[in-house]
């Protein structure tokens, strides 16, 4: 184990320490907040780079450091951290993006009275996120996961004096809790199955072959293996955290928090933690039951196209291995492991959920007018893409999109923050316009981010990562529908981003008349360099990252799967087809967007959207996010409220009546007791007291306070005693 | 008869020449039934002669010494250079009228001087004056000394109360309070020597201070840190016990005229005077015994040529000279200063001194015990002194009423 592994704990510990210090930093020392938090992140980034180079040198050997946390009776509970390609890449991404977002925040939040608190929360969040990334124990991961949820809650509700922010924070917290119940149950089940929560522990970890085989071979009922159940429960947690259908409702509302928070937590890192979790537990999620005895295989294999989860298959986790195996549909040779490679149930669920979320969120984004909400739905959509990629193409595909998305979505959010800042806290894109002239730097950076997101070919990282996902989906054997849905979502992505660009940056400035109650110039202005430099850094990454994942030189895939990258000048036909398709899609989406919106840019705030004019009904549905919130409101929440009302009624009328009757009974008893007391006990007692007092009065005459008189009696008694003793 | 005279002279010679057991040859001549009484008488008589004579001499020397200090002549008329002044004074007091106030408590008024002088004479009986001159070798001689010394307080009270005079009573109460207060540091400082030597017997304490074999310097206790401090404390406390300046508040002529012997005259007054001085001598003798090596010479060689009692009386004379010097030099303290000095300064210092002597006893290394007890005592002295020093209010002189620019 290299020394960097044993020092890896410093990466989350530094932001944690910074948070602890910031917690007590008085406001007059606010100038030290950024150096503290940013310095901790910068140091963490340097350490992460060292770790990344270490991991890149030997990608196949994961460094693990486990230690005993506490013991329950006889069973030890171990925690630990891990340095493998996955965690190394995530560490570098989180620290890098985090660092630049910290810098950006210093400019964005400069005038906030709770500046120091903000950095304290941010550092706490960063520490928890880093902990999630490098955890080698599901328990440690869960703990950091929950701390992350707490930090998210605190930051969404950072402006808690706004009722909407407070409500959004609460909503985010509660909604993710629903998923976390699944996570917790899955974790407990996993512990019960494998006896450990460590991922890798020299062959004894729960992600290593023996435990996987055990779990995959253990039927849990309802036709599922234990591994399937566990991974589905863990996926529930991921759904909650990553805002997938049906738990996506909190993520758009979370935009009530400050924009750097949206960039860091609700675009780049925390929401991706769900994807990361599934990537981490991918061995469980993709585990298939062991092959049945050979004699049975022959009988089962005779039934073609039977969707038997018992059928063995190699872990088809790499796109490069897919083309060779995908078209060998049915083979009857009983000796080798041949059949339709139907993936594990969990992967199928993931693929469907991801694809549906991608399309649904993209549709919703089309009809939004809040700049951050559009980006939020876009995030949901892209997270769906990631799950789709993870399910169909394996860890590398999903994770690559996660990384590229982190950079360009952070860039987009920061750009949006810059725009909001420049437009004096205006968030409605209809009130913007023409900002290209006012904010050129922001415009360029935003455009790069937008093209990366939309998948403009060749130079932008988003193109390559999304292309891989589509490719993997196209080759997915169980169904072609996720691919089709993904294509539609990709098209819509290009469309709504174009719409947003046009609204914000083209045409004339439409916000001049709004909110001009205060004095001074209400013209938009470019943001300070403290905010534009992070934009530049992230934009550079959004472009440069594409180098790592092209089909020609798939360094990232090789890195994650643990072998040396090799140069592949020849690209297979399937890849080219999909690439061409996505170029067409992007061009179509952008072109459609331009043709609708750029030809006649809306001149005033009150103009209705062209799409609204075209199909008002559909527009209303999209605009109201398919009425999902309302659906929840009228179903779950209404049921809940009804249950609450029933409980209140029960408490008030049934239990309350019982209590009341007890009270009345007690009152009656007390009354009787008082009567007894007053007329039976007291009279007798008074009489006794009187007797006693009179007697005492008589006796007390002997007690006249004359000490010598007492002593004389004592002396006489002593004499008598002496006499009796001596002459008895 | 000739035997008697010869043996008596021989006894005197043995005493003077520092030989052991001077009475051994003389006592067998006495009839059996009178022998022990004679022995006692032979021991007491020199004390009864020598110390009153020393008192007489001291009065003259003190008056002359004070005169020199105050830049005047002092007594110079009676006898050669005025040295017979004491005889004139003695005759005067003997022939003066003995006045007893009518309201006084006659009996107590009469008993008070006796109650002072008798215990003071008793205290001399345990002091070792020379190598073989110990009138009463008690096992607990030191305790005897303090017990008898404590009885003098009662006589002072008796004198002050029996006179039926408010100045007398005030003086007596002041004196008693002062003596009770200073008895504590006195006893505690003497206790250090008891802790170091492990005995209450005064001759044994003196023996403990003899020079060891081949040592050129005697082991007086005053040569140790705790002994030095103890001796200083002892001297101050003894000075206060004897009601001498600067602690002579009970007499305070300017305030209460003469304190508790205001109403005494003639020979009773002379007895008080005698008692005070004898008390001082006894305290000095105890100090010499405890700290200054008793009758030992500072250098053991000298003991061979000069008799031991000469050393004792030389030290006594030196201490008396010191007290005369102090009386001529220091002004009288105030009552609160007196009490503060006793309870807040000397008592803690004496307790620390006990700690120091314990350290001295238990540390084997001579250097270490020197250093430890010195540092302890110096620290306590400096710390207590600083803590008790009243805040200094010395500033530039301000003329409140004179015009500032009276040029």
């Amino acid at each position, binding site marked *: 184990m290299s020394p960097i592994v044993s020092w890896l704990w410093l990466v989350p510990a530094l932001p944690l320490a910074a948070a602890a210090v910031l917690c007590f930093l008085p406001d007059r020392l606010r100038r030290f907040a950024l150096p503290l938090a940013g310095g901790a992140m910068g140091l963490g980034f340097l350490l992460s780079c060292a770790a990344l180079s270490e991991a890149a040198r030997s990608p196949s050997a994961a460094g693990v450091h486990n230690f005993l946390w506490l013991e329950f009776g006889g069973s030890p509970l171990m925690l630990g951290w891990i340095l493998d390609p996955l965690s190394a890449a995530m560490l570098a991404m989180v620290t890098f993006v985090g660092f630049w977002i910290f810098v950006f925040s210093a400019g964005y939040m400069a005038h906030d009275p709770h500046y120091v608190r903000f950095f304290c929360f941010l550092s706490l969040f960063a520490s928890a996120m880093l902990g999630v990334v490098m955890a080698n124990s599901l328990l440690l991961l869960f703990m950091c996961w929950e701390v992350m949820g707490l930090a998210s809650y605190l930051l969404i509700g950072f402006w808690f004096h706004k009722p909407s922010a407070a409500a959004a924070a609460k909503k985010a917290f509660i909604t993710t809790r629903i998923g976390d119940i699944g996570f917790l149950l899955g974790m407990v089940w996993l512990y019960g199955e494998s006896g450990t929560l460590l991922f890798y522990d020299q062959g004894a970890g729960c992600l290593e072959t023996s435990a996987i085989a055990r779990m995959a071979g253990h039927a849990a009922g309802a036709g599922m293996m234990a591994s399937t159940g566990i991974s589905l429960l863990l996926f529930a947690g991921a759904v909650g955290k990553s805002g997938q259908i049906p738990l996506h409702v909190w993520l758009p509302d979370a935009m009530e928090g400050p924009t750097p928070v949206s960039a860091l937590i609700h675009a780049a890192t925390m929401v991706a933690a769900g994807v990361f979790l599934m990537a981490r537990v991918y061995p469980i999620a993709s585990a298939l039951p062991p092959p049945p005895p050979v004699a049975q295989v022959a009988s089962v294999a005779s039934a073609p196209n039977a969707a038997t989860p018992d059928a063995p298959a190699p872990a088809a986790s790499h796109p490069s291995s897919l083309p060779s195996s995908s078209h060998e549909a049915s083979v009857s040779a009983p000796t080798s492991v041949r059949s339709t490679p139907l993936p594990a149930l969990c992967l199928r669920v993931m693929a469907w959920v991801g694809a549906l979320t991608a399309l649904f969120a993209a549709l919703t984004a089309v009809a939004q007018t809040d700049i951050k909400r559009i980006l939020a739905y876009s995030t949901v959509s892209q997270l769906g893409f990631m799950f789709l990629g993870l399910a169909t193409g394996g860890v590398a595909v999903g994770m690559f999109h996660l990384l590229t998305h982190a950079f360009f979505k952070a860039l987009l959010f920061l750009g949006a923050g810059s725009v909001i800042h420049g437009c004096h806290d205006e968030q409605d894109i209809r009130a913007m316009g023409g900002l290209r002239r006012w904010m050129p730097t922001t415009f360029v950076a935003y455009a790069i981010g937008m093209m990366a997101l939309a998948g403009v070919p060749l130079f932008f990282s988003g193109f390559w990562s999304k292309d891989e996902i589509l490719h993997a989906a196209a080759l997915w054997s169980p169904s072609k529908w996720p691919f089709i849905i993904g294509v539609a979502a990709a098209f819509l992505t290009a469309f709504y981003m174009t719409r947003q660009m046009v609204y914000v940056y083209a045409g004339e400035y439409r916000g001049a008349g709004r909110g001009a109650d205060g004095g001074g110039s209400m013209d938009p202005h470019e943001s300070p360099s403290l905010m534009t430099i992070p934009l530049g850094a992230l934009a550079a990454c959004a472009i440069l990252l594409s180098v790592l994942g092209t089909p020609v030189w798939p360094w990232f895939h090789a890195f994650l799967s643990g072998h040396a990258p090799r140069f592949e000048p020849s690209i297979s036909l399937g890849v080219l087809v999909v690439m061409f398709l996505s170029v067409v899609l992007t061009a179509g989406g952008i072109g459609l967007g331009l043709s609708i919106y750029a030809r006649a840019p809306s001149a005033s705030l009150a103009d209705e959207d062209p799409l609204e004019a075209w199909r008002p009904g559909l527009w209303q549905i999209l605009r109201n996010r398919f009425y999902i919130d309302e659906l929840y409101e009228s179903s779950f929440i209404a049921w809940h409220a009804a249950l609450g009302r029933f409980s209140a009624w029960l408490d008030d009328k049934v239990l309350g009546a019982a209590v009341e009757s007890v009270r009345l009974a007690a009152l009656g008893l007390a009354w009787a007791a008082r009567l007894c007391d007053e007329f039976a006990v007291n009279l007798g007692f008074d009489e006794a007291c009187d007797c006693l007092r009179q007697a005492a009065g008589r006796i007390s005459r002997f007690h006249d306070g004359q000490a010598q008189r007492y002593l004389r009696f004592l002396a006489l008694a002593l004499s008598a005693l002496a006499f009796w003793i001596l002459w008895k | 008869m000739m035997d008697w005279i010869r043996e008596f002279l021989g006894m005197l010679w043995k005493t003077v020449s520092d030989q052991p057991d001077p009475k051994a040859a003389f006592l067998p001549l006495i009839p059996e039934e009178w022998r022990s009484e004679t022995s006692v008488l032979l021991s007491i008589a020199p004390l009864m002669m020598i110390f009153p004579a020393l008192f007489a001499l001291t009065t003259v020397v003190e008056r002359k010494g004070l005169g020199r200090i105050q830049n005047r002549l002092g007594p110079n008329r009676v006898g050669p250079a005025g040295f017979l002044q004491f005889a004139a004074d003695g005759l005067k007091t003997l022939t003066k009228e003995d006045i007893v106030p009518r309201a006084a408590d006659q009996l107590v008024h009469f008993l008070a001087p006796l109650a002072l002088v008798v215990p003071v004479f008793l205290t001399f009986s345990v002091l070792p004056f020379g190598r073989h001159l110990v009138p009463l070798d008690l096992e607990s001689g030191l*305790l005897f000394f303090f017990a008898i010394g*404590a009885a003098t307080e009662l006589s002072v009270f008796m004198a002050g109360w029996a006179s039926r005079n408010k100045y007398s009573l005030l003086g007596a*109460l002041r004196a008693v309070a002062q003596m009770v207060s200073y008895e504590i540091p006195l006893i505690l400082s003497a206790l250090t020597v008891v802790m170091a030597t492990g005995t209450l017997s005064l001759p044994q304490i003196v023996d403990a201070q003899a020079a060891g074999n081949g040592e050129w310097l005697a082991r007086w206790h005053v040569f140790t840190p705790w002994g030095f401090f103890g001796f200083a404390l002892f001297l101050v406390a003894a000075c206060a016990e004897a009601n001498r300046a600067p602690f002579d508040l009970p007499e305070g002529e300017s305030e209460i005229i003469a304190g508790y012997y205001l109403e005494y005259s003639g020979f009773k007054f002379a007895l008080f005077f005698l008692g005070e001085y004898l008390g001082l001598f006894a305290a000095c003798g105890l100090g010499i015994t405890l700290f200054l090596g008793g009758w030992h010479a500072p250098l053991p060689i000298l003991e061979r040529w000069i008799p031991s009692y000469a050393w004792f009386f030389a030290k006594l004379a030196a201490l008396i000279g010191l007290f005369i010097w102090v009386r001529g030099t220091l002004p009288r303290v105030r009552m609160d200063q007196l009490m503060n000095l006793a309870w807040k300064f000397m008592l803690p210092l004496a307790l620390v001194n006990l700690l120091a002597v314990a350290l001295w006893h238990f540390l084997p290394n001579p250097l270490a015990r020197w250093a430890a007890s010195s540092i302890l005592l110096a620290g306590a002295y400096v710390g207590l002194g600083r803590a008790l020093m009243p805040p200094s209010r010395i500033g530039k002189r301000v003329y409140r009423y004179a015009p500032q620019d009276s040029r």
Partner: protein
Amino acid sequence: MNGLTIILSLLVIASALGAVALRNLVHCALCLMGVFLGLAAIYLCLDAQFVGLVQILVYVGAVGILLVFAILLTRGGGAELSPFFSPSWAIGAGAAALLALIMVAAILKTDSLPAPDAGGAELPTLAQIGKRLMQEDVIVLEAMGLLLTAAAVGAIVLAMPEPPPKKEEEA
């Protein structure tokens, strides 16, 4: 009992009677000192040197002084005008005399007193007493020190002048 101790005993009894019967409190206290000194002399005669000297040091030097101070502080120095025996004192005197009679009679009559040592037993030396105090009885000695300290502090607190009463109490 030799002649000296008989004389001392008579002196002690006389002083004790004086201490309880004299009118003037200071005379009583001085007589009490006589008792203490006489007892100390008796102790010395009984070879109890240490105890005798401690008796003088503590009783005459400390308790006696305390007594006369207390007498003066309670204005008891002069002759008392009011009756100095409490009412119905005869009962008390009678009880004391009766007790004295019984006890003296019992002492003279009894024959169960232990026989004195035939002689030859070593009396404890001062060094032995010191070792005993510092080794076997050291706990008792420490307790005694604690008791004396507590008594001194308590006496100071008790005898301290009370603060002047507050205005509300006067009203």
